[in-house]
């Protein structure tokens, strides 16, 4: 079945540690890929998106993601996390009329 999967359910890091959250999708052809973040008690916010071109995309708050077509992956990275990055992170594919989201990864950053 076509889906979006995220490798980690819960990631716990100390401040200044590097972050990589995995995302894989099973859709063929051209895909539009997104990462959203949901801070505690808040709505989902767009971190970054990939449509085409440079497979390394930069988003807000120092986040970036790399699209690797051969691996059907779109992993999210940040060189040095902060306590304020504690949130839920969702990878998603846009199918033209709606999104299909992954199950989310909870990131807890310890001060």
């Amino acid at each position, binding site marked *: 079945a076509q889906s979006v999967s995220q490798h980690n359910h819960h990631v716990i890091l100390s401040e200044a540690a590097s972050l990589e959250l995995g995302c894989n999708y099973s859709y063929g052809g051209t895909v*539009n890929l*997104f990462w959203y973040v949901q801070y505690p*008690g*808040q*709505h*989902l*916010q*767009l971190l970054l*998106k990939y449509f085409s071109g440079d497979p390394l995309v930069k988003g807000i708050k120092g986040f970036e993601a790399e699209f690797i077509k051969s691996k059907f992956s779109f992993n999210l990275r940040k060189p040095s996390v902060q306590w304020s990055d504690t949130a*839920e992170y*969702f990878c*998603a594919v*846009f199918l*033209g*009329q*709606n*999104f*299909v*989201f992954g*199950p*989310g990864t909870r990131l807890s950053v310890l001060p």
Partner: protein
Amino acid sequence: DTAVSQTPKYLVTQMGNDKSIKCEQNLGHDTMYWYKQDSKKFLKIMFSYNNKELIINETVPNRFSPKSPDKAHLNLHINSLELGDSAVYFCASSPGTGSYGYTFGSGTRLTVV
């Protein structure tokens, strides 16, 4: 001003009851959506409306009925609530169908006891 607002934020109710969740957007968007986030945190599309017209209706029990009185509002009415309906329901809007520029609401956590 909140761009997409949902009410209530929390809803606890007994099985068998009927309840509604309201959503309003002040962005001037034409398209609105309801997504359901289940206990395993999967976010799935339920409905979308474009300018009051139903566009997407995924496999959702008939007990769920969306209503869009105008393009700024999309309400979700649920009849005969069941335990399995417990979830977080997110409303969203976008400029139009086919637009990825979603703005999400903060969600309504529904708990059926």
